[in-house]
């Protein structure tokens, strides 16, 4: 059995330093992000993060005007053809 004591010491030291570094770094980032919120004014372009996922439900009220035009025309054609 090899003597793993020195390696263990090193690994333990890396563990301690690593966790310190990670927490130190991310704590700085917490602070920076909080500052960021203060600096960024609540401008118009604010968007709720809740709805930023791409699978948002389709919104009935806001139809693409071009699509509406196409459909309207189609309805017209349909009526003409079917003598409604």
């Amino acid at each position, binding site marked *: *059995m*090899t003597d*793993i004591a020195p*390696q*263990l010491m*090193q*690994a*333990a030291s*890396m*563990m301690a*330093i*690593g*966790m310190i*570094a*990670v*927490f*130190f*770094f*991310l*704590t*700085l*980032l*917490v602070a*920076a*992000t*909080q500052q*960021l*919120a203060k600096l*960024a*004014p*609540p*401008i118009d*372009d*604010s*968007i*709720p*993060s*809740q709805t*930023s*996922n791409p699978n948002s439900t389709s919104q009935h009220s806001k139809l693409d005007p071009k699509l509406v035009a196409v459909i309207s025309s189609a309805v017209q054609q349909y009526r003409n053809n079917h003598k409604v």
Partner: protein
Amino acid sequence: MDGLLKLWSDTGLANFEPSQLVMIVVGLLLLYLAIVKKFEPLLLLPIGFGAVLANIPNAGFSEPGGILYYIYHVGIETGVFPLLIFMGVGAMTDFGALIANPKMLWLGAAAQFGIFATLLGAIFLNLIPGFDFTLADASAIAIIGGADGPTAIFLASRLAPDLLGAIAVAAYSYMALVPIIQPPIMKALTTPEERQIQMEQLRPVSMREKIVFPLAVLGLTILFLPAATPLVGMFCFGNLMRESGVVDRLSKTAQNELINIVTIFLGLGVGSKLSADKFLTVETLGILALGAVAFAIGTASGVLMAKAMSRMSGGKINPLIGAAGVSAVPMAARVVNKVGLEANPHNFLLMHAMGPNVAGVLGSAVAAGVLLSMAG
């Protein structure tokens, strides 16, 4: 007749070594996991197929002149492919939930304990005859606990190329197993009351915050941990393309065609490292065991951190979301949502878990930087 003999002498049947056969079975097993069990198929299908190809006798896929040889040396040995994947993932990532609630970053930090505990564990394994991990090896293995595929592949390509195949397979397999590994740990460490905590809706986040955030992340990385800048830099580049709103066509390409092309090649290239002499070793068993330990410890430390933050905040934080700190985006956040719904059918934690989830990506990239800097 000579011709037929020559043809026969070239067949797989006449040349198979048992170890190659075993590795082809390993490749088929990965394909099975990918296709039937839907284990991270985007990576495990190409990896599995690459493993099959790389172990065909006399075919030379991973020898000079073979296609897997080129793919590996051009894209993986150089670190380019994992970094491009990371850029694409950055372009897919919405940091909104994290910016709205930056304290979630601490959950992403806590969950990295899985990485560093595993580092110690890998060295402890050296007590068992047959194991002889160097500190670099141990670091590459430990990063499995980061639950982030490209980070693991990048680090392994730099610190322990021989273990790359096993490490990548372990990382993706355990990421796919998150719905099985995490819930028992989450339930064991929380009370039913804690799991029912509903969290406040997140505030809206301005476009400006979303643009500056990746630059702030990069800035801090530059100041304090340059060794993490390849990963963090490419990630933030992708995210800035996404959020800036001025290069949508580049952002869309980075999120779709480019990441798809690179994923195919990355998978095949990783698979080509699944050769018998590198994979059929006792080390691989150790890596698989340590990977499971890493995920479990990361989950536990995330949940415990969230528990502590919950108490300090007067019960405004549901401790389940700590489990998302390991990253494994978006699987871990979905698991949090599911376990939360079991406790309280009106409690949708998905968006709240996205904060620690993407924090975990940053956390493990930072951890990778520390490991690179100290063991590289």
